[in-house]
């Protein structure tokens, strides 16, 4: 029974659908590309030398009409998303831009100091990088704040979606095999392919950039969360099960803490990719440090582009150091490497 399906039914279905596609494309092709009569194709075989113009699957047409249909019918839905993200972005940006710059630097120092578990070296490095952004060019300060806000909101979105999806993938084999090609697609499809529709759906500005960051940066987080959970020692998970732990207890008490190194790696990758996306997003008019790079390139001003590039690298260092040192601190809690003094009393 299974063999018939595998060797007869499936190949047959594939052949039929292929033939259907060819017929559809032939019918949809303009008359002047086609011979007057279908049967001519069998006598005049010249169409075999160059790719015939009638053999052209009209994919862009249904995609265009589908996209129009989405805008007309679900415009409100996208407006809602737009307003929400834009609201969050504006709120955060206005607050940070409004603050005097020494206070912003002080806030970042405080954040780093506590997030890294009171590591002085990391804090000094981050403070220095923050200072150097404005020091490079006073224009960069506000622009970098805009970029930080976009990246931050984009990453928040990635975390909210990415980690639960990663967990679900680790648990469900079918979901994993369904999602993996989608993740590949998200990573390989050129970013302009969704930046431009993003503009149509959300307008120019920060929101399509946030969406683009999400599409581009969420796959590594999902992959590494999934991998991290699946790599947790099987016997340890089995031990939790054998003691009657529920799925939730297993996840929160054992799998997530032990998958943390991988998840932190995913968050790190997510950050780096988000920052890489910022420059590309500037091409659709997203304000931020990316447009300085773009401007420099457009004016063939290599120095200016490099200066802005350095500012982005500094931003990356700031993001990376804060998240990584926070992750390391979490891991130290869960997986101590150092010898812990024996303070047991009998």
């Amino acid at each position, binding site marked *: 029974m299974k063999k018939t399906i595998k060797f007869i039914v499936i190949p047959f279905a594939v052949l039929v659908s292929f033939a259907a596609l060819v017929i559809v494309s032939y019918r949809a092709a303009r008359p002047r590309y086609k011979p007057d009569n279908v049967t001519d194709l069998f006598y005049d075989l010249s169409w075999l030398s160059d790719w015939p113009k009638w053999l052209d699957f009209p994919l862009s047409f249904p995609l265009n009409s589908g996209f129009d249909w989405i805008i007309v019918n679900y415009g409100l839905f996208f407006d809602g998303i737009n307003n929400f993200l834009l609201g969050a972005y504006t709120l955060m940006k206005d607050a940070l831009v409004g603050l005097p710059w020494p206070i912003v630097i002080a806030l970042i120092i405080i954040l780093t100091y506590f997030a890294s578990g009171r590591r002085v070296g990391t804090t000094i490095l981050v403070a220095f990088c923050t200072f150097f952004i404005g020091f490079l060019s006073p224009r960069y300060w506000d622009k970098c704040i805009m970029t930080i806000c976009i990246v931050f909101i984009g990453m928040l979105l990635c975390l909210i979606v990415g980690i639960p999806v990663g967990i679900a993938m680790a648990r469900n084999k079918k979901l994993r095999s369904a999602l993996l090609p989608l993740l590949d697609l998200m990573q390989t499809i050129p970013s302009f392919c969704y930046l431009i529709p993003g503009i149509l759906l959300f307008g120019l500005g920060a929101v399509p950039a946030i969406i683009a960051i999400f599409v581009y940066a969420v796959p590594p987080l999902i992959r590494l969360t999934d991998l991290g959970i699946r790599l947790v*020692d099987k*016997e340890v998970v089995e*031990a939790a099960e054998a*003691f*009657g732990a529920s799925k939730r207890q297993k996840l929160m008490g054992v799998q997530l803490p032990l998958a943390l190194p991988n998840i932190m790696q995913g968050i790190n990758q997510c950050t780096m990719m988000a920052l890489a996306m910022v420059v590309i997003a500037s091409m659709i008019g997203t304000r931020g440090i990316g447009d300085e790079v773009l401007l420099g390139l457009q004016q063939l001003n290599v120095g200016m582009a490099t200066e802005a590039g350095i500012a982005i690298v500094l931003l990356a260092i700031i993001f990376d150091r804060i998240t990584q040192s926070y992750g390391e601190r979490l891991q130290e809690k869960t997986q101590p490497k150092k*010898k*812990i003094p*024996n303070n*047991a009393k009998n």
Partner: protein
Amino acid sequence: MPKIELKNVFKIFGDSPQEVLPMVQKGATKEKVLEDTGHTVGLDDVSVGIEKGETFVCMGLSGSGKSTLIRHVNRLIDPTSGEIVVDGTNVMELKEKDVLEFRKNHMSMVFQSFGLFPHKTVIQNVAYGLEIQGKKLEERNEIALNQIKAVGLNGFEYQYPGQLSGGMKQRVGLARALAPDNDILLMDEAFSALDPLIRADMQQQLIELQSRLKKTIVFITHDLDESLKLGDHIGILNDGRLVQVGTPEDIILKPADDYVSAFVKDVNRAKVLRARSVMLKPDDFNGRDNKPVDTFEVHEDVFIEEFLPRVLQDRSTVIVVDSQGNSKGQITEKELANALKKSE
């Protein structure tokens, strides 16, 4: 009624085990099933009853299905067909939530590579079962401390598993399994990863604990000596089939088939056989004319190795007695020679 009972349990690994089941039930061998259908037979018609308070050792080589078997008892693996009854409850009928309750309150497990939580301290590891049971922190710490003391690890409560040696880790594993005070203990090759000295030490510790606690223990091992030392009953698995179940003496003296005899061929019989199982009953020696001159008494549960040297040295005869001192039989050099001779 047995505490744990497996009735005609089959387990087949693969895409569509139910379709392959009839073939296995008709008696197809593991190799044939694998060749024809690509399915692996884990357990093949296993039925066994394990009594309350005994140590049942399940022995077999790797791939014989012993780890699969033990995971059926707490339903970490579901059988393809068959019944598993624990304490009169058919475990197969439990819903998912009840299975969790059942694991929490009836059984604990010890693992080959310990299965300790690397991110928890020793005391948190030991208290894990209690935590899942929903006990309060003070209560579970108190119980956990006692268990840690019982396995001789006091002073290490706040260390992490990564800081302990293999033997110490398995003590933590044992303490963790004992902490919830469940009456069934599943031990999956618990001592196989330990070096021989520590292993013997742990076996001794288990025997002592068991003499006090009287748990029902299912112990998996690939080591015959270990199974003979620990087991009240031993089940020998080969290719998913339970080929023989019996006491250590049964296995040695009456191997059920070639597989088992090959297994027991090189065993040191003097270490395994007890006076009771090799002695001549009164009916057998009453006919003899020469009364033994030089005799000494030995309890019926004593292993041969303990009185063997004395018999050889003095040419004396052993009078086997029970706990009340009544004579049950006698052993001479001849019986010893017969008992220790390898079966061909």
